[in-house]
């Protein structure tokens, strides 16, 4: 089964070929990248099949590792393992990856740097595949960071403009805040266990609650950065400055889910801690609701989707926090498909409408039929409407909460469901219904539609395979409980109805502007993204920059100044040294002798030049020495 190694290797190879040659070849090598993605998909399917029927197994189906470094007795190794969870993730990544790559052929075909775009996309795919295959936390972290690099490069793809540049940096730095937690988590893990591989860390080691809590919380912090959980989510909406297909792949389907995947991987540690699970739950709930609310006030279609992603990731964290990793993973899978679908749809819409502002859109359903159908499937999945995939996985999360008797959390989760349905409806009605505002609206290119349709199909049917997937993962995913399913569907429908009521009717019944004014405080908070960016800006970034400049001055004036001051002092001292002859000794002797003319007034620096003065000094020194000796000897 060595071919498993080829799954990440193929896109990596594509990167290695494309990156240096991208400029020279423009788009001629792009098919190579697509082919590599396709190859990875085929191999992933093979790998998926090879693990079939899955279930719990002591040993992974495939395991390969090599030693990275030896430190004394300790060997740090990198390795790859194939087991059900990674096989599922392989499929998610390669499917979405291929879809995005094909879609990008159309979406990006006018770009000069399309070769570079594909190179980074391939590197990203390779890193993500390596991440899901990794058999240890170190390898996971390394791939994780490389994904961060790719994210940086893709967000800043249009680096000639200010916004993408800023956004890319913000994304990298914010996730790096989380990465500090990850790195420290690794350090603590190493101190505690002395190894990074899953087998040892998760199963062979007896975790104490404290150690487990420390590690788990640190890893969670890392996951929160990468998965854009509150309050580290601020980078994700900005990251929408990148090309839309890249957003679909990285900032919707895969990379942002890596945080969830990390928690899934480290789940035994979380379980050993307990506290960490609660924190995870709280974080998930907060994120799910707040991000949902934020999504409801955005006008930029991509930002709505971005906040939606944040919110949905919150759902995944809720599942994890509730103690069910499989449910989280399940939602990860379904979300990956439908959210990438939504992004791809948004890409077509943006191409067609030449704007991202929903207020300038409307009536697109008629002009973009295929897109609207595919987008609709995704939207319904997001809202959690039967039979689209989101329904099943979300329902599973609610079930878990119910079974775990987390009723309060369940209540909040239902609020989040409501909010989600509301903003989905808002989005839909704003964009697809109502009067058309643009004259020229064209459906997307075939290369863009095909992946969307494929993803829409998956979104439509995948929910029915939930139990099968559960079995594959070694965990039972039951069919939905009618009562709970009914409740959640009802909540969702209610949300959508509200959305229709506010945005959907041709004659505006609800004056949104009046509402905004009436609840200006609430709206203000939401419109300003909870003031988080401002808070970070004012309380972290600006003070830091100010501090660096202050330190710069400090360094130049105080630290260096101290040295220069010492040098000045030294120059003074050297003057003093010359003056020493006259001022100190001369003064001393003259004080005794009290005869040399105008001694005090003639304290010129330097040697006086007067030989009689010298003689007096010498005699004085002699006298002092003799007295010293006599006193000492006595």
């Amino acid at each position, binding site marked *: 089964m060595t071919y498993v190694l080829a799954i990440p290797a193929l896109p990596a190879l594509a990167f290695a070929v494309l990156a240096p040659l991208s400029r020279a070849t423009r788009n001629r090598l792009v098919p190579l990248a697509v082919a590599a993605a396709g190859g990875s998909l085929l191999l992933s399917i093979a790998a998926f099949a090879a693990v079939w029927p899955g279930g719990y197994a002591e040993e992974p189906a495939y395991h390969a590792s090599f030693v990275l470094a030896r430190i004394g007795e300790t060997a740090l190794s990198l390795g790859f393992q194939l087991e059900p969870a990674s096989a599922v993730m392989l499929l998610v990544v390669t499917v979405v990856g291929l879809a995005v790559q094909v879609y990008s052929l159309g979406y990006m075909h006018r770009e000069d740097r399309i070769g570079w775009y594909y190179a980074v996309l391939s590197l990203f795919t390779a890193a993500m595949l390596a991440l899901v295959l990794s058999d240890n936390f170190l390898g996971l972290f390394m791939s994780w960071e490389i994904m961060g690099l790719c994210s940086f490069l893709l967000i800043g793809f249009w680096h000639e403009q200010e916004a993408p540049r800023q956004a890319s940096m913000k994304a990298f730095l914010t996730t790096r805040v989380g990465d500090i937690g990850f790195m420290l988590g690794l350090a603590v893990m190493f101190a505690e266990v002395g190894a990074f591989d899953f087998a040892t860390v998760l199963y062979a080691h007896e975790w104490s609650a404290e150690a487990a809590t420390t590690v788990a919380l640190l890893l969670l912090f890392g996951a929160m950065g990468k998965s854009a959980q509150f309050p580290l989510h601020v980078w994700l909406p900005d990251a929408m400055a990148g090309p839309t297909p890249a957003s679909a792949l990285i900032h919707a389907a895969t990379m942002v889910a890596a945080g969830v995947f990390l928690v899934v991987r480290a789940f035994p540690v979380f379980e050993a801690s307990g506290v960490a699970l609660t924190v995870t739950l709280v974080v998930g709930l907060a994120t799910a609701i707040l991000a949902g609310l934020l999504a409801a006030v955005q006008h930029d279609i991509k930002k709505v989707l971005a906040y939606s992603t944040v919110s949905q990731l919150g759902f995944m964290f809720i599942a994890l926090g509730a103690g069910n990793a499989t449910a989280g993973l399940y939602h990860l899978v379904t979300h990956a498909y439908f959210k990438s679908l939504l992004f791809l749809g948004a890409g077509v819409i943006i191409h067609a409408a030449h704007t991202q502002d929903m207020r300038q859109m409307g009536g697109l359903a008629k002009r973009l039929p295929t897109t609207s159908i595919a987008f609709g499937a995704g939207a319904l999945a997001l809202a959690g409407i039967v039979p689209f995939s989101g329904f099943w996985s979300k329902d599973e999360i609610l079930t878990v909460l119910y079974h775990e008797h987390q009723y309060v959390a369940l209540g909040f989760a239902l609020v989040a469901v409501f909010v989600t349905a509301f903003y989905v409806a808002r989005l839909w009605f704003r964009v697809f219904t109502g009067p058309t505002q643009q004259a020229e609206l064209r459906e997307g290119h075939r290369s863009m539609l095909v992946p969307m349709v494929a993803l829409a199909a998956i979104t439509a049917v995948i929910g029915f395979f939930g139990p099968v997937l559960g079995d594959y993962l070694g965990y039972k995913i039951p069919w939905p409980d009618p009562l709970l399913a009914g409740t959640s569907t009802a909540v969702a429908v209610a949300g959508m109805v509200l959305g229709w009521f506010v945005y959907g009717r041709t004659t505006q019944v609800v004056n949104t502007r009046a509402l905004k004014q009436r609840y200006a405080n609430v709206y203000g908070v939401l419109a300003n993204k909870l003031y988080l960016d401002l808070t970070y800006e004012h309380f972290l970034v600006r003070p830091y920059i100010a501090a660096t400049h202050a330190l710069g001055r400090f360094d130049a004036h105080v630290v260096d100044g101290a040295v220069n001051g010492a040098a000045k002092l030294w120059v003074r001292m050297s003057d003093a040294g010359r003056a020493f002859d006259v001022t100190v000794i001369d003064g001393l002797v003259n004080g005794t002798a009290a005869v040399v003319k105008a001694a005090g007034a003639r304290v010129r620096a330097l040697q006086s030049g007067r030989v009689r003065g010298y*003689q007096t000094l010498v005699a004085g020194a002699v006298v002092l020495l003799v007295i010293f000796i006599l006193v000492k000897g006595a």
Partner: protein
Amino acid sequence: MTELAALIPEFLVLAGALAALFAGADERRLGPWLGAGCALAAAVAVALIGPSGELFGGVMELDAVAVFGRASIASLTALWLLWVAGRGLGADRSREAAAFALLSSLGGMLMVSAQDIIVLFISLELSTMPAYVLMGYRRTDARGLEGALKYFLLSMLTSLVMLYGLSFVYGVAGSTSYAALSSAPPGALLQVSVVLVLVGMFAKLSATPFHYWTPDAYEGAQAPSVAYVSTVPKLAGTIALAQLLGALPASPDTATVVVAAAVLSMLVGNLAAFPQSDLRRLMAYSGVAHTGYLLLALSSGASGGTAAVFYALAYAVPSMAIMLLGAEEGVALDDLAGLAARRPALAWASLVWLLSLVGIPPMAGFFGKLYLFTSAVSGGQLWPVLVAIAMSVVSAGYYFRVVRRVFFGERSDAPVPPRNVPAAATFAIATLIVLALGLFASPLLGLLELRFRDVAVALAPLFG
């Protein structure tokens, strides 16, 4: 007769002095040439004859240190004369200068072998008196004479103080021989007289606070004279002082006096050298500073003596070379600007000398400092060593003011003196000595019978 044979080197030097004095016309500089030859021959003779026991009823003894001292004094004098033979002394005749230098060296050679205070005193005078004349060698130059007068008056004053001290030393010990000193009955008078003797030696070595004549005299003098006076008599004086201190009864108070002078010299010399713009004055203060290092070593017992002797040589050679460089290029620091462009080889040689004075390896100065600090620390003088070390960084500051001008300075109007083989040879030899003393110190130290190991006492009590 055998006793006189041991002094063949001294006779050679004397012969050189007389020959130089009476050598004919000055154009071909026969005097310096003859003198250089004799001095070199003397150095070789010293090495060939080697150490011998007591001579002339014990007033002298040619021990290893004396042999080293005589050989190095004679060699250094030969080196200096070689340069003088090449370049002369400007408008002045070089015959007398050569004779004076040789006579002074003769005094130095006798001084380092002295085992009797009478011999010590009289040879000290013999080594000093020609130096006055060399300082004021340009007899119509008011500044030179002023310097010489200051030198003379202070030197004579301190000589008399020393002589007075010596008279009491003789009185207390009942004999003028060194051998009797160590067994002299202790007492306040002995202590006082030893201090008076030290005053004389300090003044000759220009240690603070008896150094006042040094900067003025050097600045007034011609650079070649300074090159000689600042080095050879100091080397001789150091060795003589080492011998004398070795003979005196051990006294912590004496050590305190020496250390105090050492620390003061290091401070005043290094600090005052910094702002100087005249090379002679700079080297005068730097000489004061180096005297401080020497005294520091001398204050720490027998191994310190050896270290001081080594350091004195490691100081003398580059110092002489730098002053001779000043003689060729001008004594204002700015005169040296752009030397690297005009005379690159000389510039690089000067770098070697200056680095040696700073104490940068692998030059002789570094090893000198290494041995010196080692013996001083082992002698318990930790704080003075720290001062010395801090001051050696300060010294880098002013030596590098020279380096900076030599290498980075710009000067277009400077005349390039005509090629001169003896002068070039002088510089080359000086450079080689500086390097060789550092890299191949082993034979020399062997000669000095350095026994670092024996004095390598545990430092633990210091830190305990």
